[in-house]
């Protein structure tokens, strides 16, 4: 295993009955990298990510995240990762402060740490005036940014983002990616799934999954060169046409 790699995956497979959702994928993610996981709906992105988070048990293969085995060392694994799910996962009937306090609390952070960091975070997000407002009353874009900030609040070594910008307008998506860059600058490794191809350009390296397999893995510029394409969208379309499964995106493309 490479010294620098924080995620190490070898032949990782997940089957649900006859259906192979993730088919023997292998890759490494380097410390501090922003690693994009691209694919049409149903390509197996979310399943792969869930195995890495300890949410789903792999059928076979190896996977180490932050040095922890996803089969056996889920305790240690869970302490060292952050996770933002596709669904908005803050409590809408709690205030911003209460949400932060709760999520920091379940990671066992001290009151002093929580207090200090909450103040800085609210300042950074310009949410000082809204700290005691219910999260449910925030506009969608703000909710997403807040959810991300909460996912990295406990300073995990890796944060997993599952389609974090779904249903968010382009401007907010831009701001959201700024937050991701800021987090990466502090040394947090970012593992992000998306099906927005423009977002793929923001990643250090991207993986394109088709039908549960990894079809391509490289930096965006290298991929564009290899496939002789002007944008990541073209790269993706070339690869996704091979798909046998009927993801919605593939059909309309």
């Amino acid at each position: 295993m490479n010294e620098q790699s924080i995620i190490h995956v070898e032949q990782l497979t997940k089957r649900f009955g006859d259906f192979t959702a993730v088919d023997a994928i292998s890759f490494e993610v380097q410390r501090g990298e922003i690693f994009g996981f691209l694919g049409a709906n149903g390509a197996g992105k979310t399943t792969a990510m869930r195995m890495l988070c300890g949410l789903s048990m792999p059928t076979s293969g190896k996977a180490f995240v932050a040095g922890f085995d996803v089969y056996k060392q889920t305790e240690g694994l869970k302490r060292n990762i952050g996770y933002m799910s596709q669904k908005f996962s803050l409590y809408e009937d709690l205030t911003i402060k209460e949400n932060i306090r709760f999520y920091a609390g379940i990671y066992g952070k001290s009151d002093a740490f929580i207090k200090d960091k909450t103040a800085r975070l609210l300042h950074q997000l310009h949410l000082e005036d809204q700290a005691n407002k219910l999260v449910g009353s925030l506009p969608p874009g703000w909710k997403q940014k807040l959810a991300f900030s909460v996912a990295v609040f406990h300073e995990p070594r890796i944060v997993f983002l599952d389609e974090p910008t779904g249903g968010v307008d382009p401007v907010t998506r831009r701001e959201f990616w700024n937050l991701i860059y800021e987090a990466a600058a502090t040394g947090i490794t970012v593992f992000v799934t998306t099906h927005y191809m423009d977002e793929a350009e923001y990643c250090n390296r991207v993986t394109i999954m088709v039908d549960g397999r990894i079809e391509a893995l490289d930096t965006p510029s290298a991929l564009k060169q290899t496939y002789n394409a002007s944008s990541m969208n073209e790269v993706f379309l070339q690869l996704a046409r091979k798909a046998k499964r009927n993801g919605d995106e593939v059909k309309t493309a």
Partner: protein
Amino acid sequence: MKQFLSFVRKEFHHILRDRQTLLILLGMPIALIMIFGFALTTEVKNARFAVLDFSKDNATREITNEMETSRYFDLAAEIHGYNEIEDIFHKGKAKLILVFPPSFESQLQHVHNPQIQIIADASDPNVATTLTNYAGNIIMDFQNRYNQERKYPYTIQTRVRMLYNPQQKGTYSFVPGVISMILMLVCTMMTAITVVREKETGTMEVLLVSPVSPIKVIVAKAVPYLIISIINIISILLLSYFVLEVPIRGSLFLLMSESILFTITCLSFGLLISTATDSQMMAMFISLTGLFLPTIMLSGFLFPIENMPKALQVASNIFPARWFYQVVRAVMIKGLPLAAVWKETVILGGMAVMLLLASLKNFKTRLA
């Protein structure tokens, strides 16, 4: 511990923020006790009655007077002939009419067997039966006193004594019933819903990725409802003691401990439901029809278990409320000690442990 406290605090935030639900949870027991205590009682108070008195002597006046001064009857009218009876009932002026024959008192003194006719409006048969019983008792009392005063020979009378509930107050039997109902509703349904809600909103996924252990999630969910239940038990007991005048004969400490034990059993039941379902609707449906209704029907609270067909008697054993209802009745109304209810206590405790273990086992730390 810190994780656990963060969790409990969060649960309290949820509950305190949802004022309507909180109001229902705390207000429902009070409303139920009031409804059962005052409206759904089998007792009839201040029923209007009329008198058709053909003799108008001391004895008839005394009986009429007794009736009127009792808390069950109010004199609505004195009528003067049989033809007025229909009218009284049609207009709903009275529910019961006493008819004294002519020369009642002299018959009483010389022939010893005068008759009083009691005519009741039996369009509501339950009320009619109750009222005729009351009237019969009042007349009986009068006869006893009358006999004693005049040193007349003894007449044989049957005297029924109602143990534990001498006035046969309806309130006695439903207080334990309401306690079990409320605890069942608050603990089982609310805990089931609150866990399932996290699955629905997707927050459960994030909790599963966090290092919190399932037992902490589960217990933290239950703590606020345990506290609400204790408040409810206290308010029910206070209300029934001070407003409905139902005595608490046994040890208050024993009663509270048993109630908390039952609460824990209900909470465990709710948690088990929540681990087995994925939608709030389903959780509610299972708690209400699968648990709440059978509990009301089969716990012995509405229908005596002894009267049920054998199969239902056996089925009733699996409902915790059946055992708890017996405990409350024994401790609260009969004043029995723990020694008399140890069997029920052990059963309730055993159920709680089994349900908790089952829900822990069922609580998935992975999604698939």
